């Protein structure tokens, strides 16, 4: 599903974000990416949906060579990837329904399909009853559910979540993780960058630990830190 080979990335301001990274992630895996702030977690994720390009190395997602993609092909890569943010990035003037439908609308989907898929996505994240609310009327956990619904509404094969529980209390964080786990069980590869030690420790999934732009550990059924 994901093949990252010898990837290095430094920003124009001189910061070395990633250094010679090699990761292979199979179809339908659930992987935690852990590490302190500035370890390169976000950069790694951005590289997958081509918001950033590596200085060297190759990135392959779902058999697409991301590093060699032409700008006009980028939208089609992104339709295969859902992204969830710590700060949700919901559009304030649109309702919950419109926020989710927006992702289909802008890819030119048919109206009947937009309605059906939006309803299904909202149902999956258990937000159907809040469909006509505006984001400001929602709690943090509810906002994150809407953000997840938007990320999965066009049925991506890969879901990326960058600190999805960063702004949430422990109980709500658990609910969100269970939701991501549920999506993973529906045959979607899921990558979660997180600081949340207790969740990583108890979920016992594959853990990739980054530090200073290098991989310190890549462990099946791992915990947040090495034992």
């Amino acid at each position, binding site marked *: 599903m994901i093949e990252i080979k010898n990837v290095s990335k430094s920003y124009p301001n001189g910061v070395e974000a990633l250094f010679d990274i090699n990761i292979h992630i199979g179809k339908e895996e659930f992987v935690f990416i852990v590490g302190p702030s500035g370890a390169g977690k976000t950069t790694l994720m951005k590289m997958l*949906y*081509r*918001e*950033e*390009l590596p200085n060297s190395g190759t990135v392959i997602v779902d058999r697409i060579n991301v590093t060699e993609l032409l*700008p*006009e092909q*980028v*939208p*089609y*890569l*992104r*339709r295969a990837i859902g*992204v969830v943010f710590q700060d949700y*990035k919901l*559009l304030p003037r649109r309702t919950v329904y419109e926020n989710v439908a*927006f*992702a289909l*609308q*802008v*890819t*030119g*989907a*048919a*109206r009947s399909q937009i309605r059906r898929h939006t309803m299904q996505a909202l149902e999956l994240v258990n937000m159907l009853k809040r469909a006509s609310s505006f984001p400001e009327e929602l709690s943090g956990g509810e906002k994150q559910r809407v953000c997840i619904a*938007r990320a999965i509404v*066009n049925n991506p094969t890969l879901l990326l979540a960058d600190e999805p529980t960063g702004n949430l209390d422990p109980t709500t964080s658990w609910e969100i993780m269970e939701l991501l786990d549920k999506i993973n069980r529906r045959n979607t590869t899921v990558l979660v960058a997180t600081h949340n030690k207790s969740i990583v420790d108890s979920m016992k999934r594959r853990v990739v630990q980054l530090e200073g732009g290098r991989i310190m550990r890549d462990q099946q059924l791992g915990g947040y830190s090495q034992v």
Partner: protein
Amino acid sequence: MRIFGDLEFFVVEAFRGVRRSGVMSLVAIGIVTVSLFIFGLFLLFMVNLGNMVSEMGSRLDIVAYVEKAVTPDEAAAITEKLSHITGVEKVRYVSREEAWRSFRDDFTQKLDLATIVGENPLPDSFAIKVRTPDILPRVAEAVAQYPEVDEVRYSGKLIKQIQTLLDALRLGGAVLVVLLFFATLLIVVNTIRLTVLARETDIYIMKLVGATRSFIRWPFVIEGILIGVLGGLLGILILKPSYDAVTNRLQVGLPFLPLMTDKFTLNVIYLMVGLSGMLLGMLGGYISVSRLLKEK
């Protein structure tokens, strides 16, 4: 069906944009109006000048005088020879009697020439029509080369001066129009950029979920078209009555002035003004969002 769904999305978004940057949109429309009004004035001015010059050109022939009276055979031979000069449209033999007659007709109301001059003092001549006024000097020179021709007359200097003036005006006008175009474009771009900035998150999300660049662009291009077309229509709405009023007044005072009143030509000019507005708006919308659409 899909196309219509998309179109509805674009248009709704475009109107949202115009409303969101309300006052600035009005300012932009006003500036487009003024620019296009000036552009239209320039077009009308040039068309009228061109009209005048060609009118004058059609009146101005080259006249080639011959020394002595020619026989009809000789006249035909000379006519034939002169017709072969490139740029010559028509050559007509004017006998001294005919010239005298028309001369007297022209002036008979003002003074009785026959009593002053007595008998006919005019030589035989050939009136030569050329295709365009600008080749008058060259043709005149060629005509003068013929031994039968005694003297060549044409209002070359005047035509030349008018042509030079016209060229200068055309160049100056074109420079003005280009400057005006870019200044107006800048205003339109900045107006729509207000919408673009207000919608940065929307655009980011659109890119993230895989909207194509053209899809993201359309609402802004349509917003530009709205501004441009409204400005263009207002410009025409001011331009047309102004021109009609001015030409009406001029035609009363200066009836011999060959003003352009051809409906078709005028409508083409108004159409050009409107289309320029649309183009200006489209381009403005296109440019305004470009920076945000760059992919790494």
